[in-house]
């Protein structure tokens, strides 16, 4: 596969990821606004999000229980994962081109990304 074909495949993957993430965020957002839309909001003081919205596993648990905020957070995480997935797919495609140097470089980038998400 040429670099050009790789780019097109990866580009389509990105678009799909953004659309899916956007749909989940929109769905969660509508649920949230229907149930709590009239509540007041204030972001002027930083309190930090509650623990249940701070890690991958707790966000997943909340989303399974269809809590609107957790659903939105899942959508946002899907969005964050889209470029990560693109990097992961690049590893396979560079491997197919038998370009060892770039397999190494891309694996390194993927490692840093996964490390940061696992924090």
């Amino acid at each position: 596969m040429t670099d050009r074909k790789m780019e097109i495949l990866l580009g389509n993957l990105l678009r799909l990821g953004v659309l899916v993430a956007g749909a989940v965020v929109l769905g969660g957002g509508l649920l949230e606004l229907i149930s709590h839309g009239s509540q007041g909001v204030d972001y002027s003081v930083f309190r930090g999000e509650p623990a249940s919205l701070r890690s991958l596993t707790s966000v997943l648990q909340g989303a399974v229980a269809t809590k609107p905020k957790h659903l939105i957070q899942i959508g946002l995480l899907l969005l964050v994962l889209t470029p990560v997935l693109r990097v992961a797919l690049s590893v396979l495609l560079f491997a197919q081109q038998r370009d060892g140097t770039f397999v190494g470089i891309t694996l390194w980038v993927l490692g840093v990304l996964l490390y940061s998400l696992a924090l």
Partner: protein
Amino acid sequence: MSELEFSLLIFLGSLLAGGVGALTGLGGGVILVPLLVLGFKVDLHYALGASLISVIATSSGAASAYVREGYSNLRIGMFLEVATTLGALLGAHLVGILPKSWVATVFGVALLYSAFQSFQDRYKDGQPSTVPSDPLAVRLRMESTYPTPQGLQPYTVHRVLGGFSLMGVAGMLSGLLGIGSGAVKVLAMERVMGLPYKVSTTTSNFMIGVTAAASAGVYLSRGYIDPLLAMPVMLGVFLGSLLGARILSKAAPGRLRLLFVGVIALLGVQMIYQGLRGGL
């Protein structure tokens, strides 16, 4: 203000930020953070979290259109990502450590710098370099071609290590400020590595999403990413950037840039003022 009103207003603001970001090639984050902080009185940390999300949305959204045209260089992008992701991780950790006033001041300086950069770029050149590539670039097979009205044009790649170190700085700014730091990335590729302008901007666009993803984990675990705030931001910026990209083909770019320069220079001065005064 109720949640519904707030979401709608943020959505409209983000639509504008995304549109202007796409039109100027600087991304939405650079406008979004001052808009949230100064316009909606949102705490800087929440604003940085929402902005980071918007950066990934614009980058991934625009990338599919750009790659189909064959401008962006995957090899160069991936190689430079080594520097930007490490820088981003470092920057994201520094947000929790540095005082807010410092972050605001750095942001202000980054805005003023972007304004200056945009102002200089208002008469874009396009001379292809005839000097042979950096040996490292040849070894990494970075040389490629890009489409021009005269057909596919080959280009050479220079000062790979210089570009690489500047990318580390770009990554750090991105993690620290929740922006894509596209201006620094384009600068590193165009001015330092001698790549054609369109190759630089589109490769930068691809890189922005990956760099931002590297700081997203830290932002999430520190509780900077609020779903209710990020929801209208993500949807607004994404739609705005699609609209902006449509308008781009019809608008006069020189005038757009000049307008943009004025707006972000003003915001930059205000951010620095607030940062130094400690009003955030």
